[in-house]
């Protein structure tokens, strides 16, 4: 007859239902929700896109624009991106009310301007990334607006010039 204890169990517990959405959800302070990328701080280096396990963060270069795209729909909310971000531009929020009727609503795009190479005119890094690099490595301004390809050509040229092997 112990099964009658259900009355006791139910009475002790009372009604536990959280009346979400009319009441607060059951989240703790540690919960990891959607990430927010601070456009002020983001330099467009793409470190987050390399660590992101499901490729929810992707990077694409098109013309003079670098697109950092965060697709919430594929995000696994692991927060690794926030850990690797060199400028701490990524913060983990507690947002979980992300449901939409249109899948495009789940895209968060950051469009970075890319710097054109002084020599060949092809766009390469983002403006902000170059600024960020200059801040950390003084004296790199000289080559800052030269793309890696031209830069290596340039340095070879300079070395040769220095050694006097080449008439320029």
């Amino acid at each position, binding site marked *: 007859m*112990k099964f009658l204890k259900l009355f006791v169990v*139910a009475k002790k517990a009372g009604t*536990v239902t959280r009346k979400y959405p009319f009441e607060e959800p059951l989240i*703790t302070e*540690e919960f990891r929700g959607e990430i927010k990328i601070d456009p002020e701080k983001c330099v467009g280096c793409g470190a987050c896109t390399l660590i992101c396990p499901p490729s929810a963060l992707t990077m694409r270069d098109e013309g003079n624009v670098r697109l950092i795209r965060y697709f919430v729909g594929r995000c696994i909310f692991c*927060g690794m991106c926030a850990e690797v971000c060199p400028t701490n531009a990524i913060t983990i929020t507690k947002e979980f009310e992300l449901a939409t009727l249109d899948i495009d609503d789940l895209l968060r795009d950051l469009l970075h301007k890319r710097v054109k190479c002084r020599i060949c005119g092809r766009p390469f890094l983002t403006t902000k990334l170059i600024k960020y690099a200059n801040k950390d490595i003084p004296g790199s301004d000289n080559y800052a607006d030269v793309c890696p390809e031209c830069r290596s050509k340039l340095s070879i040229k300079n070395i040769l010039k220095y050694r006097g092997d080449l008439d320029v």
Partner: protein
Amino acid sequence: MKNNDVKTLAKGSDKAVDMVLKLLKEKLSKYNVRISRAVANNLIVDVSRRHLRDVAKIVHNELGAYVRTCVGCDERNKNGCFAVYHIFGLDDYGVNVIVRTLAPANDVKVPSIADIAPGADWCELEFRDLLGINVTGRPVYRLILPEDWPDDLHPLRKDVPYGVRPPPVKREEVTLTELESPGIPVGPYHPALHEPEYFELYVEGETIIDVRYRGFHIHRGIEKLGESKLTYKQIPFIAERICGICGFCHSTCYVMAVEKAAKIEVPERAEFIRAIVLEIERIHSHLLWLGVACHLLGYDAGFMHTWRIREAIMKLAEYLTGSRKTYGINIIGGVRKDINKEKIQNVLKTLDHIEREVKELLDMMLSVPEVKRRLTGTGILTRGEARKLSVVGPVARASGLNRDVRKDYPYLAYKYVSFKVPVYTEGDNLSRTLVRVEEIFESISIIRQLLDRLPSGDIKVEKYEIEPDKVSTASVEAPRGEDIHFLITGKGRPYRWKVRAPTYQNIPALRPMLREQMLADAPITIASIDPCFSCTDRVIVIETRNGKVVSVKRINIVKLSRRRWPQNEVSKALRSS
């Protein structure tokens, strides 16, 4: 070797490995084998194809090793061969014996050992499907890949690029005729299974006479993904998503395998935190199972109340790790989140609360007449069958096999705590329930001990190097049993990564369990192994007929029912009354 020596031996220690090495050398002296030590508690036995069966016989039957799994590997770019690794576990010593056989690329076949060690049945078919290594001396059929998958394309071969996706072929569906077809898709979608899996139960009246399992609906190609796209650091997160219930076991298992291979010294504090989270996961999983079992027995009050109590554990998990499920705190070299004093206090408080509530609830639940009657004596798995199939976890422990990875292959911080491994001998659904129930309380006590002894220090090491070509294994006692990851390191990512989830080893045991049972008990019996198909299927699926669980044609069933039932049932009932 005397039994006493074995008992006092520290399992998995260097001494134990040396003892096994000596033992193997002695036993295998007639055969041309090379025995070498690999990392940690692993021994590699290189054997030619000719002697594979003899060696397997000795290791499995004479030394009493359990089949842990077998792995195929495409090593053509290393030595021009395909390799097959049969992993045996000597529970008494805590040592793995990895039997390696090579099959040259122009003659890709190995002899089967499934008749010697039935536990190897599936994994042989698995490497046949995924790597195209033929197995001789046994019936073969496609197990893992979809039916429309081309015959000559083996996705885990290294020359098959990651992105390959042959277009789905419109299958000639073997539909039943208008009269026979129910017209409604039921199984693989069936309320008793929360995942798409397919059991064909052949029934006579209401008694099951045979079972056919068609699984691997959830094959997502995780191993290929790990070997060709992701990096070492990203894999813990995908490993966690092998299974949404026991995911942390998988990620722990993976990081442990890498750490062993790379000889990374993980800080003790991290080992404690991992063990704590593993036990929290076990409590949540067992409570979840208990609830589902109640639901399957039609006792919804039990379901609701166990899940109500479980909610506190879910909250606790989120509080400690940041996510309710798929915690995401495991990384190679340690963990990402620390536990502070305040958290310890809260955990202890929640545990006290849960312990009290679960006790009260179980008292009530197991006294419900229908629950008790339908659990007792149903779905029996004898000790002999259990040993033969090398079953793991609560299923093994309910059938009288004292197997627990936490004791047999000590890992993480389990060596610092004392706990009991519940073992029952009846092998029925009730024993499997009781094993899990007792484990809930053991886990609570383990967490308390671990929190009490939590050492201070770092929680991760950042600097490490992973050398390629190291063979390593790691195993974790998941809520459902032994989870084992096999790893060969490569450059930047694993060269071969194989996951063997506990359910993989337990599903074949369903056949003896379901036979001669009532149809009504099939759901609870299937559930009693706590199947986790997404674990099992990491790689796979098959099935021709559209889902129907009971695949006896309508006409037959009506006939059968008329002949055998209800008259039969009624007369039986009358007789017994």
